[in-house]
Protein backbone atom coordinates (compact mmCIF):
# COMPACT_ATOMS: atom_id res chain seq x y z
CA UNK A 1 0.00 0.00 0.00
CA UNK A 2 2.75 2.43 0.97
CA UNK A 3 4.67 1.54 -2.21
CA UNK A 4 1.58 2.35 -4.29
CA UNK A 5 1.05 5.71 -2.60
CA UNK A 6 4.74 6.54 -3.05
CA UNK A 7 4.66 5.57 -6.74
CA UNK A 8 1.50 7.58 -7.27
CA UNK A 9 3.03 10.63 -5.58
CA UNK A 10 6.14 10.39 -7.75
CA UNK A 11 4.03 10.08 -10.89
CA UNK A 12 1.85 13.04 -9.92
CA UNK A 13 4.92 15.13 -9.11
CA UNK A 14 6.43 14.34 -12.50
CA UNK A 15 3.14 15.13 -14.21
CA UNK A 16 2.78 18.51 -12.55
CA UNK A 17 6.40 19.47 -13.14
CA UNK A 18 6.02 18.76 -16.83
CA UNK A 19 2.72 20.58 -16.93
CA UNK A 20 4.09 23.64 -15.16
CA UNK A 21 7.12 23.85 -17.45
CA UNK A 22 4.72 23.97 -20.36
CA UNK A 23 2.88 26.79 -18.65
CA UNK A 24 6.12 28.64 -18.05
CA UNK A 25 7.11 28.17 -21.66
CA UNK A 26 3.82 29.72 -22.75
CA UNK A 27 4.23 32.68 -20.42
CA UNK A 28 7.74 33.55 -21.60
CA UNK A 29 7.26 36.45 -23.97
CA UNK A 30 8.93 36.86 -27.31
CA UNK A 31 11.96 39.07 -27.69
CA UNK A 32 11.21 42.28 -29.58
CA UNK A 33 12.60 42.25 -33.09
CA UNK A 34 12.34 44.34 -36.23
CA UNK A 35 11.42 42.45 -39.37
CA UNK A 36 12.57 43.50 -42.84
CA UNK A 37 10.36 41.83 -45.46
CA UNK A 38 8.48 42.13 -48.74
CA UNK A 39 10.50 42.76 -51.91
CA UNK A 40 13.68 41.43 -50.33
CA UNK A 41 16.04 38.62 -51.23
CA UNK A 42 16.21 37.59 -47.57
CA UNK A 43 13.70 38.31 -44.81
CA UNK A 44 15.48 39.60 -41.72
CA UNK A 45 14.39 39.43 -38.11
CA UNK A 46 16.75 41.45 -35.95
CA UNK A 47 16.62 41.41 -32.17
CA UNK A 48 18.29 44.08 -30.05
CA UNK A 49 21.39 41.93 -29.65
CA UNK A 50 21.63 41.27 -33.42
CA UNK A 51 21.13 44.96 -34.06
CA UNK A 52 23.81 46.02 -31.58
CA UNK A 53 26.42 44.18 -33.63
CA UNK A 54 25.80 46.32 -36.73
CA UNK A 55 27.85 49.52 -37.35
CA UNK A 56 26.06 52.48 -35.80
CA UNK A 57 25.88 56.15 -36.77
CA UNK A 58 24.47 59.20 -35.00
CA UNK A 59 21.40 61.19 -35.99
CA UNK A 60 19.52 64.08 -34.45
CA UNK A 61 15.95 65.25 -34.65
CA UNK A 62 13.75 67.82 -32.90
CA UNK A 63 11.07 66.50 -30.57
CA UNK A 64 7.52 67.87 -30.11
CA UNK A 65 8.82 70.74 -27.98
CA UNK A 66 11.59 71.69 -30.40
CA UNK A 67 14.41 70.17 -28.35
CA UNK A 68 17.27 68.51 -30.24
CA UNK A 69 17.61 64.81 -29.47
CA UNK A 70 20.65 62.61 -30.17
CA UNK A 71 20.10 59.08 -31.35
CA UNK A 72 22.38 56.25 -32.37
CA UNK A 73 21.37 53.50 -34.77
CA UNK A 74 21.79 51.86 -38.14
CA UNK A 75 20.95 53.66 -41.41
CA UNK A 76 17.80 52.14 -42.87
CA UNK A 77 19.70 51.94 -46.16
CA UNK A 78 22.15 49.46 -44.60
CA UNK A 79 19.33 47.31 -43.18
CA UNK A 80 17.61 47.15 -46.56
CA UNK A 81 20.92 46.32 -48.23
CA UNK A 82 21.39 43.43 -45.80
CA UNK A 83 18.00 42.11 -46.84
CA UNK A 84 18.90 42.40 -50.51
CA UNK A 85 16.66 45.28 -51.58
CA UNK A 86 17.28 46.88 -55.00
CA UNK A 87 19.32 49.94 -53.99
CA UNK A 88 22.28 51.89 -55.33
CA UNK A 89 22.98 50.88 -58.91
CA UNK A 90 19.84 48.74 -58.97
CA UNK A 91 17.55 51.60 -57.94
CA UNK A 92 16.33 52.54 -61.36
CA UNK A 93 13.51 51.78 -63.75
CA UNK A 94 10.60 49.94 -62.15
CA UNK A 95 12.45 49.63 -58.84
CA UNK A 96 11.77 53.33 -58.39
CA UNK A 97 8.09 52.42 -57.94
CA UNK A 98 8.96 50.64 -54.69
CA UNK A 99 8.16 52.04 -51.28
CA UNK A 100 9.02 51.04 -47.72
CA UNK A 101 6.11 50.80 -45.29
CA UNK A 102 7.18 51.26 -41.68
CA UNK A 103 4.84 49.67 -39.18
CA UNK A 104 4.87 50.17 -35.44
CA UNK A 105 3.75 47.41 -33.10
CA UNK A 106 0.86 49.69 -32.10
CA UNK A 107 -0.42 49.69 -35.67
CA UNK A 108 0.87 53.07 -36.80
CA UNK A 109 2.16 53.12 -40.39
CA UNK A 110 4.05 55.55 -42.65
CA UNK A 111 5.64 55.26 -46.06
CA UNK A 112 8.99 56.22 -47.57
CA UNK A 113 10.11 56.02 -51.16
CA UNK A 114 13.21 53.87 -51.63
CA UNK A 115 15.02 56.80 -53.23
CA UNK A 116 14.80 58.99 -50.14
CA UNK A 117 16.59 56.27 -48.17
CA UNK A 118 19.43 55.85 -50.68
CA UNK A 119 22.59 58.05 -50.48
CA UNK A 120 22.79 57.81 -54.28
CA UNK A 121 19.68 60.05 -54.32
CA UNK A 122 19.36 61.90 -51.01
CA UNK A 123 21.89 63.24 -48.53
CA UNK A 124 19.68 62.88 -45.47
CA UNK A 125 20.51 59.77 -43.44
CA UNK A 126 17.43 58.14 -41.95
CA UNK A 127 18.30 55.68 -39.22
CA UNK A 128 16.61 53.02 -37.17
CA UNK A 129 17.75 53.92 -33.68
CA UNK A 130 18.18 51.69 -30.66
CA UNK A 131 19.83 54.22 -28.35
CA UNK A 132 19.23 57.80 -27.27
CA UNK A 133 21.92 59.80 -25.45
CA UNK A 134 23.83 56.55 -25.06
CA UNK A 135 20.97 54.69 -23.34
CA UNK A 136 18.37 52.18 -24.58
CA UNK A 137 15.09 53.72 -25.69
CA UNK A 138 12.25 54.29 -23.21
CA UNK A 139 9.05 52.22 -22.98
CA UNK A 140 6.67 53.06 -25.77
CA UNK A 141 9.54 54.50 -27.83
CA UNK A 142 11.77 51.49 -28.34
CA UNK A 143 13.32 49.06 -28.64
CA UNK A 144 13.64 50.53 -32.14
CA UNK A 145 12.47 53.88 -33.48
CA UNK A 146 12.93 55.62 -36.78
CA UNK A 147 14.80 58.92 -36.71
CA UNK A 148 14.11 61.15 -39.69
CA UNK A 149 16.21 64.33 -39.36
CA UNK A 150 15.08 67.72 -40.68
CA UNK A 151 11.35 67.18 -40.94
CA UNK A 152 8.92 69.83 -39.70
CA UNK A 153 6.82 67.26 -37.88
CA UNK A 154 8.00 64.12 -36.10
CA UNK A 155 5.12 62.05 -37.50
CA UNK A 156 7.36 59.91 -39.71
CA UNK A 157 9.86 59.14 -36.96
CA UNK A 158 7.90 56.04 -36.03
CA UNK A 159 8.16 54.67 -32.49
CA UNK A 160 8.35 50.96 -31.58
CA UNK A 161 9.16 49.93 -35.14
CA UNK A 162 8.25 46.31 -35.73
CA UNK A 163 8.25 45.96 -39.53
CA UNK A 164 9.96 47.46 -42.56
CA UNK A 165 8.01 46.20 -45.56
CA UNK A 166 9.18 46.90 -49.11
CA UNK A 167 6.56 46.69 -51.89
CA UNK A 168 5.84 47.81 -55.41
CA UNK A 169 3.23 50.54 -55.69
CA UNK A 170 0.07 49.10 -57.25
CA UNK A 171 -1.65 50.99 -59.96
Amino acid sequence: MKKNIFALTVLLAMFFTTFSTTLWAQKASKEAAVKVEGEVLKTLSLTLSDFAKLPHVEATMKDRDGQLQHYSGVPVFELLKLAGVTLGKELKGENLTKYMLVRSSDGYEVVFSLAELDPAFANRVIILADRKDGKPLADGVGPFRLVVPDENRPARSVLEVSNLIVRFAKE
Partner: protein
Amino acid sequence: MQISHYKKLTLFLVLFTAGMLVAANAADSFYTDPYKLEYPDYFGNRISIPADNLTTKQGVYLGRMLFYETKLSSSKTISCASCHQQKLAFADSKAFSFGINDMPTKRNSMSLSNLLWVRNFFWDGRAKGLEEQAKFPLNDPHEMGNYLEQAVKDLQKTKEYPPLFKAAFGSTEITVDRLTKAIAQFERTLISANAPYDKYLRGEYKPTPEELNGMELFMNSPVPSKNIRGANCAQCHGTPKMYMELFHNNGLDSIPKDIGREEITGMQNDRGRFRVATLRNIELTAPYMHDGRFKTLEEVLDHYNEHILPSRTLSLSLQDRSNVENGKTLGLTVQEKSNIISFLKMLTDTDFINDPRFADPHLKKK
Protein backbone atom coordinates in the same frame (compact mmCIF):
# COMPACT_ATOMS: atom_id res chain seq x y z
CA MET B 1 -36.21 25.88 -101.85
CA GLN B 2 -34.46 22.57 -101.87
CA ILE B 3 -31.44 22.28 -99.49
CA SER B 4 -29.09 19.49 -100.33
CA HIS B 5 -28.69 16.62 -97.89
CA TYR B 6 -25.11 17.57 -97.04
CA LYS B 7 -25.98 21.16 -96.37
CA LYS B 8 -28.72 20.04 -93.96
CA LEU B 9 -26.25 17.83 -92.14
CA THR B 10 -23.68 20.62 -91.88
CA LEU B 11 -26.31 23.07 -90.63
CA PHE B 12 -27.46 20.59 -88.02
CA LEU B 13 -23.91 19.95 -86.82
CA VAL B 14 -23.12 23.66 -86.58
CA LEU B 15 -26.29 24.38 -84.60
CA PHE B 16 -25.69 21.41 -82.33
CA THR B 17 -22.09 22.49 -81.53
CA ALA B 18 -23.22 26.06 -80.93
CA GLY B 19 -25.96 24.83 -78.64
CA MET B 20 -23.52 22.69 -76.62
CA LEU B 21 -21.05 25.60 -76.25
CA VAL B 22 -23.77 27.95 -75.05
CA ALA B 23 -25.03 25.38 -72.57
CA ALA B 24 -21.52 24.71 -71.28
CA ASN B 25 -20.86 28.41 -70.71
CA ALA B 26 -24.20 29.03 -69.06
CA ALA B 27 -23.61 26.16 -66.65
CA ASP B 28 -20.32 27.62 -65.37
CA SER B 29 -21.08 31.33 -65.14
CA PHE B 30 -23.61 33.07 -62.95
CA TYR B 31 -24.59 36.67 -62.90
CA THR B 32 -24.50 38.87 -59.79
CA ASP B 33 -25.28 42.55 -59.41
CA PRO B 34 -22.49 44.60 -57.82
CA TYR B 35 -23.54 46.36 -54.62
CA LYS B 36 -22.42 49.96 -54.68
CA LEU B 37 -20.99 50.88 -51.30
CA GLU B 38 -21.60 54.57 -50.67
CA TYR B 39 -19.70 56.66 -48.19
CA PRO B 40 -18.48 60.25 -47.81
CA ASP B 41 -15.17 61.34 -49.33
CA TYR B 42 -13.86 62.25 -45.92
CA PHE B 43 -13.92 58.58 -44.90
CA GLY B 44 -11.15 57.95 -47.39
CA ASN B 45 -10.76 55.01 -49.73
CA ARG B 46 -8.55 52.74 -47.69
CA ILE B 47 -11.29 50.10 -47.75
CA SER B 48 -10.74 46.39 -47.39
CA ILE B 49 -12.51 44.08 -49.86
CA PRO B 50 -10.77 40.81 -50.75
CA ALA B 51 -10.52 39.97 -54.45
CA ASP B 52 -12.33 36.67 -53.92
CA ASN B 53 -15.35 38.20 -52.15
CA LEU B 54 -16.60 41.25 -53.98
CA THR B 55 -19.74 42.86 -52.61
CA THR B 56 -22.82 41.85 -54.63
CA LYS B 57 -26.52 42.42 -54.05
CA GLN B 58 -27.12 38.68 -53.93
CA GLY B 59 -24.26 38.13 -51.46
CA VAL B 60 -25.38 40.98 -49.24
CA TYR B 61 -28.98 39.72 -49.15
CA LEU B 62 -27.84 36.23 -48.24
CA GLY B 63 -25.45 37.66 -45.65
CA ARG B 64 -28.26 39.61 -44.05
CA MET B 65 -30.42 36.49 -43.87
CA LEU B 66 -27.54 34.63 -42.21
CA PHE B 67 -26.68 37.49 -39.83
CA TYR B 68 -30.15 37.22 -38.34
CA GLU B 69 -30.38 33.40 -38.64
CA THR B 70 -30.73 31.60 -35.34
CA LYS B 71 -30.38 28.22 -37.04
CA LEU B 72 -26.62 28.86 -37.01
CA SER B 73 -26.50 28.21 -33.26
CA SER B 74 -26.76 24.84 -31.60
CA SER B 75 -29.66 26.03 -29.44
CA LYS B 76 -31.42 27.64 -32.42
CA THR B 77 -31.86 30.78 -30.32
CA ILE B 78 -28.74 32.84 -31.03
CA SER B 79 -27.81 34.67 -34.21
CA CYS B 80 -25.16 37.33 -34.81
CA ALA B 81 -27.91 39.86 -34.15
CA SER B 82 -28.40 38.57 -30.60
CA CYS B 83 -25.23 40.37 -29.47
CA HIS B 84 -25.10 42.84 -32.34
CA GLN B 85 -28.48 44.59 -32.30
CA GLN B 86 -29.22 47.22 -34.92
CA LYS B 87 -30.96 49.61 -32.54
CA LEU B 88 -27.78 49.70 -30.45
CA ALA B 89 -25.57 50.28 -33.50
CA PHE B 90 -24.98 46.53 -33.66
CA ALA B 91 -23.63 46.21 -30.14
CA ASP B 92 -25.58 45.11 -27.07
CA SER B 93 -26.19 46.62 -23.66
CA LYS B 94 -24.21 44.14 -21.57
CA ALA B 95 -20.63 44.17 -20.33
CA PHE B 96 -20.21 40.59 -21.51
CA SER B 97 -22.69 38.82 -23.72
CA PHE B 98 -24.28 35.46 -23.08
CA GLY B 99 -24.30 32.77 -25.74
CA ILE B 100 -26.08 29.48 -25.99
CA ASN B 101 -25.26 28.04 -22.59
CA ASP B 102 -25.40 31.27 -20.58
CA MET B 103 -21.63 31.45 -20.30
CA PRO B 104 -20.33 35.00 -20.62
CA THR B 105 -18.08 35.99 -23.49
CA LYS B 106 -14.55 37.05 -22.70
CA ARG B 107 -14.95 40.61 -23.86
CA ASN B 108 -17.56 43.25 -24.63
CA SER B 109 -19.45 42.95 -27.94
CA MET B 110 -18.15 45.60 -30.31
CA SER B 111 -20.36 47.86 -32.42
CA LEU B 112 -20.39 46.87 -36.07
CA SER B 113 -20.27 50.07 -38.07
CA ASN B 114 -17.87 51.14 -40.80
CA LEU B 115 -16.07 47.81 -40.73
CA LEU B 116 -15.28 48.30 -44.40
CA TRP B 117 -12.19 50.23 -43.27
CA VAL B 118 -11.06 47.99 -40.43
CA ARG B 119 -8.31 45.49 -41.10
CA ASN B 120 -7.64 43.88 -37.73
CA PHE B 121 -10.78 42.65 -35.99
CA PHE B 122 -11.67 42.05 -32.32
CA TRP B 123 -10.34 43.99 -29.35
CA ASP B 124 -6.97 42.30 -29.86
CA GLY B 125 -6.84 42.46 -33.64
CA ARG B 126 -6.44 38.72 -34.04
CA ALA B 127 -8.59 38.34 -37.15
CA LYS B 128 -7.43 39.85 -40.41
CA GLY B 129 -10.48 40.43 -42.51
CA LEU B 130 -14.21 40.07 -41.93
CA GLU B 131 -14.31 36.61 -43.48
CA GLU B 132 -11.87 35.34 -40.87
CA GLN B 133 -13.64 37.16 -38.05
CA ALA B 134 -17.05 35.59 -38.76
CA LYS B 135 -15.73 32.11 -38.08
CA PHE B 136 -14.80 32.89 -34.46
CA PRO B 137 -18.26 33.42 -32.88
CA LEU B 138 -19.73 30.69 -35.05
CA ASN B 139 -17.10 28.25 -33.79
CA ASP B 140 -17.04 29.39 -30.18
CA PRO B 141 -18.62 26.80 -27.88
CA HIS B 142 -19.98 29.51 -25.57
CA GLU B 143 -21.19 31.96 -28.21
CA MET B 144 -23.04 30.05 -30.90
CA GLY B 145 -22.13 26.56 -29.76
CA ASN B 146 -19.41 25.49 -32.19
CA TYR B 147 -22.18 24.49 -34.50
CA LEU B 148 -20.89 25.70 -37.84
CA GLU B 149 -20.35 22.36 -39.60
CA GLN B 150 -23.75 21.07 -38.53
CA ALA B 151 -25.46 24.40 -39.30
CA VAL B 152 -24.21 24.15 -42.86
CA LYS B 153 -25.89 20.75 -43.14
CA ASP B 154 -29.10 22.09 -41.55
CA LEU B 155 -29.29 25.01 -43.96
CA GLN B 156 -28.68 22.67 -46.89
CA LYS B 157 -31.91 20.86 -45.99
CA THR B 158 -34.04 24.04 -46.00
CA LYS B 159 -36.05 25.23 -48.99
CA GLU B 160 -34.95 28.86 -48.86
CA TYR B 161 -31.16 28.78 -48.48
CA PRO B 162 -29.82 26.66 -51.36
CA PRO B 163 -31.36 29.00 -53.98
CA LEU B 164 -29.94 32.03 -52.14
CA PHE B 165 -26.49 30.45 -52.17
CA LYS B 166 -26.92 29.67 -55.86
CA ALA B 167 -27.76 33.31 -56.56
CA ALA B 168 -24.79 34.59 -54.57
CA PHE B 169 -22.12 32.00 -55.36
CA GLY B 170 -23.40 30.07 -58.37
CA SER B 171 -23.98 26.80 -56.54
CA THR B 172 -26.62 25.37 -54.21
CA GLU B 173 -23.84 23.72 -52.22
CA ILE B 174 -23.55 25.48 -48.86
CA THR B 175 -20.06 25.59 -47.38
CA VAL B 176 -18.51 27.26 -44.32
CA ASP B 177 -16.44 29.39 -46.67
CA ARG B 178 -19.44 30.73 -48.59
CA LEU B 179 -21.44 31.27 -45.43
CA THR B 180 -18.78 33.47 -43.85
CA LYS B 181 -18.20 35.28 -47.14
CA ALA B 182 -21.88 36.21 -47.34
CA ILE B 183 -21.95 37.48 -43.76
CA ALA B 184 -18.82 39.53 -44.46
CA GLN B 185 -20.44 41.07 -47.54
CA PHE B 186 -23.46 42.16 -45.49
CA GLU B 187 -21.26 43.59 -42.76
CA ARG B 188 -19.39 45.74 -45.27
CA THR B 189 -22.63 47.50 -46.09
CA LEU B 190 -23.13 48.68 -42.49
CA ILE B 191 -21.92 52.21 -43.07
CA SER B 192 -22.78 54.92 -40.54
CA ALA B 193 -22.20 58.37 -42.01
CA ASN B 194 -25.28 60.50 -41.35
CA ALA B 195 -24.98 61.56 -37.73
CA PRO B 196 -25.29 65.26 -36.76
CA TYR B 197 -21.49 65.38 -36.90
CA ASP B 198 -21.55 64.33 -40.56
CA LYS B 199 -24.24 66.93 -41.24
CA TYR B 200 -22.00 69.50 -39.55
CA LEU B 201 -19.10 68.46 -41.81
CA ARG B 202 -21.38 68.99 -44.80
CA GLY B 203 -22.40 72.41 -43.49
CA GLU B 204 -25.96 71.26 -42.78
CA TYR B 205 -25.96 71.34 -38.98
CA LYS B 206 -25.14 74.11 -36.55
CA PRO B 207 -23.76 72.71 -33.27
CA THR B 208 -24.76 74.22 -29.94
CA PRO B 209 -22.04 76.15 -28.04
CA GLU B 210 -21.60 73.12 -25.75
CA GLU B 211 -21.18 70.76 -28.70
CA LEU B 212 -18.74 73.11 -30.40
CA ASN B 213 -16.64 73.47 -27.27
CA GLY B 214 -16.71 69.71 -26.81
CA MET B 215 -15.54 69.27 -30.40
CA GLU B 216 -12.64 71.66 -29.93
CA LEU B 217 -11.54 69.98 -26.73
CA PHE B 218 -11.82 66.59 -28.44
CA MET B 219 -9.63 67.68 -31.35
CA ASN B 220 -6.99 69.75 -29.57
CA SER B 221 -3.99 68.95 -27.46
CA PRO B 222 -3.75 71.04 -24.29
CA VAL B 223 -1.04 73.72 -24.25
CA PRO B 224 -1.41 75.45 -20.88
CA SER B 225 1.40 77.94 -21.55
CA LYS B 226 -0.63 79.32 -24.45
CA ASN B 227 -3.99 78.92 -22.68
CA ILE B 228 -5.12 76.32 -25.20
CA ARG B 229 -7.56 73.91 -23.56
CA GLY B 230 -7.73 70.39 -24.93
CA ALA B 231 -8.49 66.75 -24.17
CA ASN B 232 -6.41 65.31 -27.02
CA CYS B 233 -8.96 62.58 -27.83
CA ALA B 234 -8.25 62.99 -31.54
CA GLN B 235 -4.75 61.59 -31.05
CA CYS B 236 -6.35 58.13 -31.18
CA HIS B 237 -10.00 58.78 -31.96
CA GLY B 238 -9.45 61.40 -34.62
CA THR B 239 -10.55 61.46 -38.29
CA PRO B 240 -14.26 61.47 -39.23
CA LYS B 241 -14.41 57.70 -38.73
CA MET B 242 -13.67 58.49 -35.05
CA TYR B 243 -10.91 55.93 -34.66
CA MET B 244 -7.46 55.15 -35.94
CA GLU B 245 -6.41 51.56 -36.31
CA LEU B 246 -4.04 51.51 -33.35
CA PHE B 247 -3.59 49.29 -30.32
CA HIS B 248 -3.12 51.28 -27.15
CA ASN B 249 -3.13 50.75 -23.41
CA ASN B 250 -5.44 53.48 -22.15
CA GLY B 251 -4.57 53.16 -18.48
CA LEU B 252 -7.49 51.06 -17.27
CA ASP B 253 -5.28 48.98 -14.99
CA SER B 254 -1.72 49.02 -13.76
CA ILE B 255 -1.72 45.24 -13.88
CA PRO B 256 -4.32 44.20 -16.45
CA LYS B 257 -6.28 41.02 -15.85
CA ASP B 258 -6.88 40.80 -19.59
CA ILE B 259 -3.54 41.26 -21.31
CA GLY B 260 -5.17 42.10 -24.63
CA ARG B 261 -2.94 42.11 -27.69
CA GLU B 262 -0.02 40.53 -25.81
CA GLU B 263 -1.95 37.27 -25.95
CA ILE B 264 -1.75 37.37 -29.73
CA THR B 265 1.73 38.73 -30.33
CA GLY B 266 3.54 37.38 -27.29
CA MET B 267 5.27 40.76 -26.92
CA GLN B 268 5.46 42.40 -23.51
CA ASN B 269 5.13 45.80 -25.16
CA ASP B 270 1.58 44.83 -26.10
CA ARG B 271 0.42 44.12 -22.57
CA GLY B 272 -2.99 45.63 -21.88
CA ARG B 273 -3.22 47.01 -25.40
CA PHE B 274 -6.58 46.94 -27.14
CA ARG B 275 -7.82 48.23 -30.46
CA VAL B 276 -8.98 51.82 -30.48
CA ALA B 277 -12.71 51.42 -31.10
CA THR B 278 -14.81 53.83 -33.14
CA LEU B 279 -16.74 56.44 -31.19
CA ARG B 280 -19.54 56.54 -33.75
CA ASN B 281 -22.92 55.91 -32.09
CA ILE B 282 -21.07 55.76 -28.78
CA GLU B 283 -24.16 57.06 -26.97
CA LEU B 284 -25.85 53.77 -27.82
CA THR B 285 -23.12 51.23 -27.22
CA ALA B 286 -22.72 51.29 -23.42
CA PRO B 287 -21.13 49.77 -21.41
CA TYR B 288 -17.65 50.83 -22.45
CA MET B 289 -14.16 49.36 -22.84
CA HIS B 290 -13.13 45.78 -23.61
CA ASP B 291 -14.69 44.55 -20.39
CA GLY B 292 -17.63 46.92 -20.26
CA ARG B 293 -16.49 48.38 -16.96
CA PHE B 294 -17.86 51.88 -17.53
CA LYS B 295 -21.63 52.14 -17.69
CA THR B 296 -21.83 55.79 -18.73
CA LEU B 297 -19.92 58.26 -20.85
CA GLU B 298 -19.46 60.32 -17.69
CA GLU B 299 -17.47 57.45 -16.19
CA VAL B 300 -15.37 57.26 -19.36
CA LEU B 301 -14.55 60.96 -19.28
CA ASP B 302 -13.73 60.74 -15.57
CA HIS B 303 -11.35 57.90 -16.35
CA TYR B 304 -9.45 59.83 -19.00
CA ASN B 305 -9.47 63.01 -16.96
CA GLU B 306 -8.55 61.71 -13.53
CA HIS B 307 -8.04 57.96 -13.28
CA ILE B 308 -5.49 56.88 -15.88
CA LEU B 309 -3.32 54.25 -14.21
CA PRO B 310 0.40 54.00 -14.95
CA SER B 311 2.14 50.95 -16.37
CA ARG B 312 5.10 50.22 -18.62
CA THR B 313 2.83 50.00 -21.64
CA LEU B 314 0.58 53.01 -20.94
CA SER B 315 0.11 54.87 -24.21
CA LEU B 316 2.50 57.78 -24.62
CA SER B 317 -0.46 59.77 -25.96
CA LEU B 318 -1.97 59.67 -22.46
CA GLN B 319 1.15 60.78 -20.62
CA ASP B 320 2.15 64.36 -19.84
CA ARG B 321 -0.94 65.90 -21.38
CA SER B 322 -2.47 68.39 -19.00
CA ASN B 323 -4.44 71.60 -19.07
CA VAL B 324 -2.45 72.60 -16.01
CA GLU B 325 1.22 73.53 -16.30
CA ASN B 326 3.18 70.40 -15.23
CA GLY B 327 -0.11 68.77 -14.23
CA LYS B 328 -0.25 65.03 -13.74
CA THR B 329 -3.83 64.60 -14.94
CA LEU B 330 -5.74 66.03 -17.88
CA GLY B 331 -7.38 68.70 -15.70
CA LEU B 332 -10.64 69.33 -17.55
CA THR B 333 -13.47 71.07 -15.71
CA VAL B 334 -16.82 69.42 -15.04
CA GLN B 335 -18.41 71.60 -17.71
CA GLU B 336 -15.71 70.70 -20.23
CA LYS B 337 -16.25 66.99 -19.64
CA SER B 338 -19.95 67.50 -20.13
CA ASN B 339 -19.34 69.44 -23.36
CA ILE B 340 -17.21 66.64 -24.73
CA ILE B 341 -20.09 64.27 -24.03
CA SER B 342 -22.42 66.64 -25.88
CA PHE B 343 -20.09 66.38 -28.86
CA LEU B 344 -19.96 62.58 -28.57
CA LYS B 345 -23.75 62.53 -28.76
CA MET B 346 -23.45 64.24 -32.13
CA LEU B 347 -22.11 60.92 -33.40
CA THR B 348 -25.43 59.10 -33.03
CA ASP B 349 -26.76 58.17 -36.46
CA THR B 350 -30.51 57.50 -36.22
CA ASP B 351 -30.70 56.70 -39.93
CA PHE B 352 -28.20 53.90 -39.44
CA ILE B 353 -30.03 52.26 -36.55
CA ASN B 354 -33.34 52.44 -38.37
CA ASP B 355 -32.21 51.62 -41.88
CA PRO B 356 -34.49 48.85 -43.20
CA ARG B 357 -31.66 47.56 -45.39
CA PHE B 358 -29.88 46.40 -42.23
CA ALA B 359 -32.91 45.10 -40.35
CA ASP B 360 -34.05 41.57 -39.63
CA PRO B 361 -35.38 40.09 -42.88
CA HIS B 362 -36.99 37.13 -41.11
CA LEU B 363 -39.49 39.30 -39.21
CA LYS B 364 -41.81 39.70 -42.17
CA LYS B 365 -42.45 35.99 -42.24
CA LYS B 366 -43.48 35.68 -38.58
